[in-house]
C-alpha cells in the first residue's frame, strides 16, 4: 500500500456562513460554498470533472448537486458517513484525483439541520428494516455515557470534571469571536459553562455544540496542476477512515473512555503521513467537539495527551491559541454548529487557511502540518475520519 501522501493538492476552498439560515435552502448553500471555492482556485464550474457530494439529511443523490451547480453530466457520488461525512467526501474526491480517473474534483458538503427541529434521526444503521427497540434519544446521550464512565474510571469528582469541560468550552467560544463565519460570537465564562442547564448528565448546554445550517467545499487536483495554478496550494498528507462494527456494545471489554475508531484512524493517518510524534509534529488541529467530553477524549485518542492525562493539558492551556498545539482555532463545532456533512470540510477550510497564513486574527505563527478529525454515529458504530494536510516542502 503506497498511501496518499503528497499525491493530491487543495487549490480552492469555500465556506458559507454557518448558523440559522432560514432564508437559504441547501441549493443556496451549495452554490455559495462552491462559487467561493471556484474563485479561490481561479476555476469555473465547467472545469470540475468529477464531484463528491456529502449530505446526511438534505439531499440523497448526486443529481441534487448537478441541479444546484448546473454541472453538465459529470460523475457525482453522494457520500454519507454521519458526522465524518464531510471529511469522507473530501477523501473520496482525493482518491478520484490520485487514481488518475480525473484531474480536478470537487468535494462539497451541505446540511439544513434547522429545517427539522435541529435533530437527526437515529437511523444510523438502517431506517426501515428494524424493530425500533433501540434507544432513540439525541446523540448527546451516546457521548454522555463516555463522560459518566470517564468520571467513574479516573475517580473524577463531578465539579472538577465539569471545570475541565468548561475550560474547553471557554477556549472554543473565545476562538469563535474571531471567526466571522461561525454561528456564535460570544465569550463565555467558566461559571456560565458549569452552571448551564444539564441536557444529559453530566453534559450541560455549553458542553454541547450548536445546531446549524451550512456548507463547505474543496477543489482538489494533482500537485503538478496545483503548481501551475497557484503558489500557496496545500498538500494532502493522510486520509483515514474507520467504521465501528458494534464492538463497543457487543464486547464487555470496551471501556467507554476512548473511541476505538479514532485510535485506529489516527494510527492509519500517522503511518500514511509518516508522523511519529503527533504532539510535536502537528501544529494545529480541528477536532470534533460535538461535546466537551468528545474533545477531551480525542486529545488522548490522537496521542496529543497521554491516556487519562488530557485534563492536565487542558489546565495547562496546551490547546489554546497560545498553547503548543492549538485545537479548534476557529471556534470548532461549538461555535459553528454542526451541519453534519459540511463540518469536516469546514475544518479543512480552517487548516487550509492556517497553512496559507490567511487565518486573520486566528493565525498561528508556525503552521506546517494540520490535522482534521471527525467522529459520529452511536457507540460501537462510530465513523471516524482523519485528514492531515501540510505545506509543500
Amino acid at each position, binding site marked *: 500500500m503506497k498511501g496518499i501522501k503528497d499525491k493530491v493538492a487543495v487549490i480552492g476552498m469555500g465556506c458559507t456562513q454557518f448558523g440559522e439560515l432560514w432564508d437559504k435552502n441547501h441549493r443556496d448553500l451549495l452554490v455559495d460554498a462552491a462559487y467561493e471555492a471556484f474563485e479561490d482556485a481561479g476555476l469555473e464550474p465547467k472545469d470540475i470533472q468529477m464531484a463528491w457530494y456529502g449530505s446526511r439529511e438534505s439531499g440523497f443523490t448526486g443529481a441534487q448537486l448537478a441541479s444546484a451547480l448546473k454541472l453538465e453530466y459529470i460523475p457525482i457520488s453522494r457520500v454519507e458517513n454521519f458526522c465524518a461525512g464531510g471529511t469522507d467526501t473530501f477523501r473520496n474526491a482525493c482518491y478520484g484525483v490520485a487514481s488518475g480517473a480525473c484531474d480536478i474534483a470537487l468535494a462539497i458538503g451541505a446540511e439544513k439541520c434547522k429545517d427539522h427541529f435541529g435533530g437527526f434521526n*437515529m437511523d444510523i444503521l438502517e431506517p426501515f428494516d428494524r*424493530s425500533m*427497540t433501540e434507544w432513540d434519544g439525541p446523540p448527546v*446521550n451516546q457521548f*454522555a455515557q463516555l463522560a459518566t464512565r470517564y468520571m467513574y474510571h479516573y475517580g473524577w469528582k463531578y465539579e472538577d470534571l465539569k471545570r475541565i469541560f468548561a475550560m474547553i468550552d471557554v477556549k472554543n467560544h473565545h476562538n469563535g469571536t474571531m471567526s466571522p463565519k461561525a454561528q456564535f460570537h460570544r465569550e463565555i465564562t467558566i461559571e456560565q459553562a458549569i452552571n448551564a442547564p444539564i441536557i444529559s448528565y453530566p453534559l450541560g448546554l455549553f458542553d454541547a455544540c450548536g445546531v446549524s445550517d451550512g456548507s463547505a467545499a474543496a477543489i482538489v487536483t494533482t500537485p503538478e496542476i496545483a503548481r501551475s495554478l497557484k503558489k500557496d496550494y496545500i498538500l494532502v498528507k493522510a486520509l483515514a477512515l474507520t467504521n465501528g462494527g458494534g464492538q463497543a*456494545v*457487543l464486547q464487555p471489554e470496551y471501556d467507554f473512555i476512548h473511541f476505538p475508531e479514532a485510535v485506529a484512524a489516527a494510527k492509519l493517518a500517522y503511518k500514511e503521513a509518516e508522523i511519529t510524534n503527533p504532539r510535536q509534529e502537528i501544529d494545529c488541529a480541528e477536532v470534533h467537539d460535538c461535546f466537551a467530553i468528545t474533545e477531551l477524549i480525542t486529545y488522548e485518542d490522537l496521542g496529543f495527551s497521554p491516556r487519562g492525562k488530557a485534563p492536565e493539558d487542558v489546565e495547562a492551556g496546551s490547546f489554546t491559541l497560545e498553547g503548543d498545539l492549538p485545537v479548534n482555532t476557529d471556534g470548532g463545532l461549538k461555535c459553528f454548529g454542526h451541519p453534519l456533512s459540511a463540518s469536516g470540510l469546514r475544518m479543512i477550510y480552517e487548516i487550509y487557511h492556517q497553512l496559507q497564513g490567511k487565518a486573520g486574527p486566528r493565525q498561528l505563527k508556525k503552521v506546517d502540518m494540520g490535522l482534521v478529525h471527525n467522529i459520529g454515529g452511536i457507540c460501537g458504530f462510530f465513523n471516524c475520519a482523519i485528514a492531515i494536510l501540510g505545506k509543500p516542502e
Partner: protein
Amino acid sequence: MVGITAYGAYVPLFRLSREAIAKGAKGEKSICNFDEDSITMAAAAAIDCLNGIDRDTVDGLYFASTTHPYKEKLGASTIAMATDLKTDILTTDFSHSLRAGTSALKSALDAVKAGSAKKVLVTAADCRLAFPLSAFEPNFGDGAGALLIGDTDVAVTVEASYSVYNEIMDVWRHENDSFVRTWEDRFTLAHGYLEGVKEAVSGLMKKFGYSPGDFSKVVLYSPDGRRHTELAKSLGFDPKTQVQDPLFAVMGNTGAAAPLMLLVAALEEAKAGDRILLASYGDGSDAFVLQVTEQIEKIRDRRGMKKHLASRKVVTDYKDYLAWRGILPAEPRKETVVFLSAPALWRERDANLRLHGVKCKACGTVQFPPQRVCTHCHTKDQFEPYRLSDKRARVFTFAMDRITSPVLELPIVTTTIDFDGGGRMQCFMTDRDPERVECGLPVEMTFRKLQLKGGIQNYFWKSMPIRT
C-alpha cells in the same frame, strides 16, 4: 388430582397516594408506570410464577384481562414469547369480564383434567381507568397474578367449583369507552355483586355439602372495603378471622387480576391442611374450594404479593398519573420512529420478546442482538440461542437525558449493561431513582412497552434496579 402447582404475582412499583386525588383520602393505590400495560404485568407475574421451573414444560398459557391493549390480536402469544415458552402450546385470551381470571382458571383445570395439557399457566392482569375524580378512581389498582395448573406435585388441589352468570349492567365499558361505567351503587351492589357471589357460594356449599366453618380462609373479589365486609358477613364468614385482606389500603381493586392476586396473598400465609374458598365477581361468579397440601412449602421462593407490596415508590402528584395514562395529553415530541415494520418485528421477535441473544459455539462469546458473524472470533453462523431476560447484570455506564420527554419521564435513563455470564446490551432503564443510578449498579430485566405506531404496540425489555 388437579390443582395449583405454583403461583406468582406482580404489583407495580408505583403507588398513587389517595391524598393526591382527594384531600383527606387515605392509603395508596398501585399504578403501573407509563411503560406498562396488562400484557407486561401479566408477563412479570408469569415469570415470577415459573421461578425454578423449566419453561419448556409449560404447554398452555391463558391471559385474562378487561384492559387488553388490542381488540383483535392475541395477548397470550405475546406473554408466551416474553415468558420464553415453546410455540406448540395452548394460548387463549379470556376477556370482557371481571371474572375472566377465574374463568381462565376453571378452563385450565378442565384442560389438565381432560388431558389436553399438562401444565397451563393462567395469568390475569388489569389496569382499569375510572373517570378522573370519580368515586371509583381511588379504589382501582393495577396488578397481575399467575397460577400454574397441573396434576403433579400439586400444592393446592381444587376440590369443587361452581359458576353462575348474572346478566346485569352494573359495571361495564362499551367498545369505545376508555373509562368504566357503572349504574347507581345501591342497585349494582344489591343485584350485581352481593346477589351474584351469594348465588355461586351458596350453590357451591349446598351442592358439595360445605358450611362456612369449613374454611380457614375466604378469598373474595370486591369493589371496595365496605362491600367486602358486608358480603363476607352475609355469607356467614367472620370478617376478622376468616377473610383474606382485600388490600384496599395498599393496592386497590385490581379487576380481573384481583381474585388471583388475593389468592396468592392467602397462599403465602397458608399451610398444609388449610381449606380455602375463592369467589370472583363479574357478570356472575366463579366459586372454588381449594385444599392446601404439603407441597406448598416447596414453592415459597417467589416474590408473589408480599415482596412486591413491600417494594414501593409513592407518587404524590396526580398529574403524573394522568400523564402516564394518556388522560392528560403530552405535547408531542419530535418523532424519530416513522413507522413500525411488521416484517422487521416478526423477524426479530425472538430477540425482542424472548430477549434471546446468541452464544458463539466456537468461542463462547455471548452477543446481543443476535449476530451472523461472531464479534470476537469472527466465526460465521455457529451460534445457539441464549436467553438474557432472566439474567442479572450491572450498569457499566449510563446517560440521563433531560430534554427529550419532560412530561412522562425526567430524565430518560439509558444504560449500557453487562450480564452475569457474558453479554452486553444498551437499553432504557425504568422504575429508577435518578439519584441512585451509577456505574456498577446491579439490575434485572423487565418487559415493557415502547412506542405505539400505526396501531402496533411495540414491546421490549428495559433494565431496572433489582426490585426486591
